[in-house]
């Protein structure tokens, strides 16, 4: 997961496809439309069409297929629980149960894989309470630093025998290691607070303002939204 997260974040900032150039607000709208359609269409063909559109978006964004599969395949395990619980002897229900979350997570991965996080969080921060919006930025900002530290901690635990022995000992050792990161997080928050004060922080973390700046690339977003709406309406109950 660490590698997937890091690569998605890098691709979001370094990509140069029309999807990367399109406005974050437009992409957010398209993603919400696709997800709402995917979780609500009753027809299997409509759902398959939406899933195909989601794959088209992901592949034309030049996101590596293996990365997209790894990131968007997470819901399968949970969906299988529902497939088992609701097995009715047909293929339709299990397919719907698996395709719906897969389509939605694929769209989410396309969105974060083509939109740098300040642009993505900026429109969200306009509608969320101030403390939550600031927390969203600060959490994501702290994440990659802590991911690196967690990786190093895990390597150190393995090398020093912290991953051998009875589970209780292993887990307690992992907990003590995470305790060092809690402490680091607290000290980091003190440093960050001091830096924010020194820079004359106004009391609100704001993303950059070009999340809503439309460009020619937004025509592709509009086209994709039209295609998704047309596919869903045409095939609403088919299959």
């Amino acid at each position, binding site marked *: 997961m660490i590698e997937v997260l890091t690569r998605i974040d890098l691709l979001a900032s370094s990509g140069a496809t029309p999807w990367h150039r399109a406005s974050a607000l437009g992409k957010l709208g398209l*993603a919400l439309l696709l997800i709402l359609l995917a979780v609500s269409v009753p027809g299997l063909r409509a759902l398959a069409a939406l899933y195909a559109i989601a794959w088209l978006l992901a592949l034309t964004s030049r996101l590596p297929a293996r990365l997209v599969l790894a990131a968007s395949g997470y*819901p399968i395990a949970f969906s299988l629980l*529902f497939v088992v*619980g609701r097995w009715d002897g047909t293929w339709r229900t299990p397919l719907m149960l698996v395709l719906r979350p897969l389509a939605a997570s694929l769209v989410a991965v396309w969105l974060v894989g083509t939109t740098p996080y300040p642009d993505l969080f900026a429109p969200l921060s306009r509608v969320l309470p101030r403390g939550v919006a600031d*927390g969203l930025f600060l*959490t994501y900002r702290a994440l990659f630093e802590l991911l690196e530290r967690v990786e190093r901690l895990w390597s150190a635990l393995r090398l020093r025998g912290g991953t051998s022995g009875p589970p209780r000992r292993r*887990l307690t050792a992992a907990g003590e290691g*995470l305790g060092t990161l*809690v*402490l680091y997080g607290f000290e980091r928050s003190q440093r960050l607070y001091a830096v924010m004060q020194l820079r004359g922080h106004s009391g609100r973390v704001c993303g950059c303002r070009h999340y809503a700046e439309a460009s020619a690339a937004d025509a592709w977003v509009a086209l994709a939204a039209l295609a998704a709406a047309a596919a869903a309406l045409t095939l609403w109950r088919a299959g």
Partner: protein
Amino acid sequence: MHLHIPDGVLPVRLWLPGLALALVLLAWAARYAARGRQAVAYQGALGALALAAMALEIPLGPLEYHLTLIGPLGVLLGPAAAFVAVFIVNAILALLGHGGLTVVGLNALVLGAGAALARPTYRALAGRMTPAAAFATATVVAQAVSGALWLALVTYALRLPARAPDAGGFGAGFGAPGARVGLVAGLAFPMALVGIAAEAAVAYGIARFLGRVRPDLLPAPAAAVAGARGGAGPAPEGRPA
């Protein structure tokens, strides 16, 4: 094992009220919780730590367990700030395809309910046992509550009729009266028990370390808080008490 429910397996009549309730609670929690930028930064750091810890794969026999750390988050941040942190963690995970955007409210409610109980439990127990044991017990309570809510939600969803009388596909559930709820519970229950034990052991380690090097980061027991304040009301959340 994560408790995050993905998009598309729950009907709108479950996730929409869940999202609305979570947003109302979020607005309240954000007002009550982190007062001050340092508290927001600490909340962000602990939320990021929970996300980073979820990336760890802890081998437990044939299973690979992913931590959630809702107990430690709840004890260290307090109910309101922990709910905000849990909501943010779920929103970021949903954007990465883990969990769902439509069910971000329900996921936050399920995990946030457990996290919200952690600090009161810790405070009640800290005077009677060691801080590490109280921390681990609070984590057990948090995990058990979240696990029970998750199972109740899944059970309810499985029992919903396959096609609701309200509009088109929007109200459609996948459940049926004959759904194998027992089988699902039988699969989920052992995993939940493993999760509770793993999280409690990790929480014990976190508290043991903090107790040695920075005991001030752990909340004070309920009796000490009442004595110190003379009943002046609860401590501000989002920072150590």
